[in-house]
């Protein structure tokens, strides 16, 4: 067990034939992910690196039984590709693309409601169930199978957390990067709920950032609904006000979206906080013992 992806996952890549799409699809396949197809409009019928290419998501799903799609399409066209996946009723869509216009994502978010799809991302490293299925750009080798779920808004900071766990021989059930954009498909609470229900997950690491209220809402949800321990770090305690720190989401607009305010509410809600990003593994280890 794990959440969202496992050995049964059948992956297709939208934007397969591009440089990034090819590289990361092959990396995922090497890790053991069952890659069944790809989509590049106009290149349908060809075989790319042993993977059949189709002109549309719908066709690819029909022919290959794909049940997860990784989006590697440039930002200008990425929202359109996500919408095409939603239209084809793709169950799981993972959008890696960084830099999609916000208003495009507002439309996508509306289309996701009452749809048959779940979107992870955009602007995220993807999702991995160690030892079973990797969809995204994270380095597979730092992970190990186990019982800690990881959910994060950041990419490399997630690798840092996973690395600290693996170093202590604490494995991970599933690691989900939900992405750094202000409008995304799956939020902290969605993942926490899945981890809470997952028999293979015993504890969770949640990594947040300054800006927005997602962590605050997650803290309240944890207090009311979760009996598995959660360790959390919020990046950006040292960030100056009003400056955008790379992620469109990470901008403090004042009030309760500072790191300090988020740490405080997490602590009040019974979450174990790591003030230092170097303490995530340590804190989790002491919770599990």
């Amino acid at each position, binding site marked *: 067990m794990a959440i969202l992806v496992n050995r049964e996952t059948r992956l297709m890549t939208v934007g397969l034939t591009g440089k990034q799409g090819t590289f*990361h699809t092959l990396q995922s396949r090497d890790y053991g992910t069952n890659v069944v197809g790809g989509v590049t409009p106009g290149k349908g019928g060809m075989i790319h690196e042993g993977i059949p290419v189709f002109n549309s998501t719908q066709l690819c799903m029909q022919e290959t039984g794909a049940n997860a799609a990784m989006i590697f399409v440039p*930002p*200008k066209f990425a929202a359109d590709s996500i919408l095409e996946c939603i239209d084809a009723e793709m169950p799981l869509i993972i959008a890696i693309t960084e*830099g*999609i*216009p*916000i*208003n*495009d*994502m*507002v*439309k996508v978010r*509306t289309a996701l409601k009452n749809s048959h799809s779940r979107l992870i991302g955009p602007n995220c*490293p993807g999702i991995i169930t160690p030892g079973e299925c990797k969809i995204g*750009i*994270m*380095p597979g080798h*730092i992970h190990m199978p186990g019982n800690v779920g990881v959910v*994060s*808004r*950041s*990419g*490399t*900071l*997630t*690798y*840092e957390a996973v*690395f600290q766990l693996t170093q202590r021989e604490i494995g991970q059930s599933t690691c989900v990067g939900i992405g*750094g954009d*202000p*409008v995304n498909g799956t939020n902290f609470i969605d993942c926490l709920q899945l981890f809470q229900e997952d028999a293979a997950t015993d504890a969770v690491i949640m*990594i947040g*950032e*300054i800006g*927005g*209220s*997602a962590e605050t*809402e997650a803290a309240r949800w944890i207090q009311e609904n979760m009996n598995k321990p959660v360790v959390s*770090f919020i*990046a*950006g*305690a*040292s*960030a*100056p006000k*009003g*400056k*955008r*720190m*790379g*992620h469109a*989401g*990470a901008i403090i607009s*004042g*009030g309760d979206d500072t*790191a300090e305010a988020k740490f405080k509410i997490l602590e009040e809600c019974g979450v174990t906080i790591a*003030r*230092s*990003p*170097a303490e995530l593994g340590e804190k989790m280890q002491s919770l599990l013992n």
Partner: protein
Amino acid sequence: MNVHEYQAKELMKEFKMKVLKGAVANSVDEAVAAAKEMGGNVWVVKAQIHAGGRGKGGGVKLAKSLDEVKQHAQDILGMNLVTHQTGPEGKKVLKLLIEQGCEIEHEYYAGVVLDRATGKITFMASSEGGVDIETVAAQTPEKIIKVAIDPAVGFSPYVGRKLAYGIGLTGDAVAQAAKFFEGLYRLYIEKDCSIAEINPLVLTKDQEIIALDAKLNFDANALFRHPDIERLRDPSEESEQELEAGEFGLSYISLDGNIGCLVNGAGLAMATMDIIKLHGGSPANFLDVGGGADKEAVKKAFSIILQDENVKAILVNIFGGIMKCDIIAEGIVAAAKEMSLEVPLVVRLEGTNVSLGKKILKESGLSITAAEDLKDAAEKAVTAAKES
């Protein structure tokens, strides 16, 4: 991306919103000539910088004669305007907006923003304009009317009426305001704004709804479809280093500490700054080299960090995912050799091709302090900055 008030108002006119008669001036003479040309007997002289709070800082002044226009223009042009948004260093005023005055009956607030919690564009209006809207939101939230707009439905006229009645307008002003609100929403959507804020929006004694101020911010990720907006960019408002970094795909923000940081990933870059602070140091910058940086980009990152004279030590923290540690190592070696690195360098590498990366650094003969993990890296960098 930010634009100036005068540019925002030009755009607003295209979307049928009323603004006061005004003109841009780059000199005192131009300011006086503009005031003369537009006529009237009251003018407002407004500093054009990308920051709010200009009035309190002395950047907005009322003139009741052409002599006063001249006097104010002389005072404001070239001044170093400090507001709560510029930081203590302030911003130099290079442009003025000269506007005709008007008689105000009441000041309102109107704004369009993304509500991140719902993922919907949300219209806000308040009867309490002309003041800090955050204060209104904190103290009297019931005085802010909010309407979330479904992108599939768009702006229906009732939204405008709901907002106009909600802020207490009556008579003719309701229809005028409703039209204004529709224009502001259309501008937000059609030009891909990330903020469109009018504070104050006023009702004049002549019963006209007019924008006195305007703040428009545009989504940088959508500029590819708005070359007209891209042309409004004012490079004098952006730091040279930040612009230079952008050209190489680096994301750089200057801070006031003394430890230069070079990190991959925005989250890890922030976390690196945080851990430096936790160990008693102070970061000199935020710098995310991104996922696809090559040797040249790494070299550029070093040169940007070293332009900051406050930098006493550099901490490189790389967790290789897409980014390979050997590429970073090659960039570090090349940069250190070409730029005669005089400050201590602490390097922490982990992830993809880490052993190859460490080998390149070791064999380079450079004096580099290798760090074992994140904590070790922060401690070593803080010590190095204190000692040098």
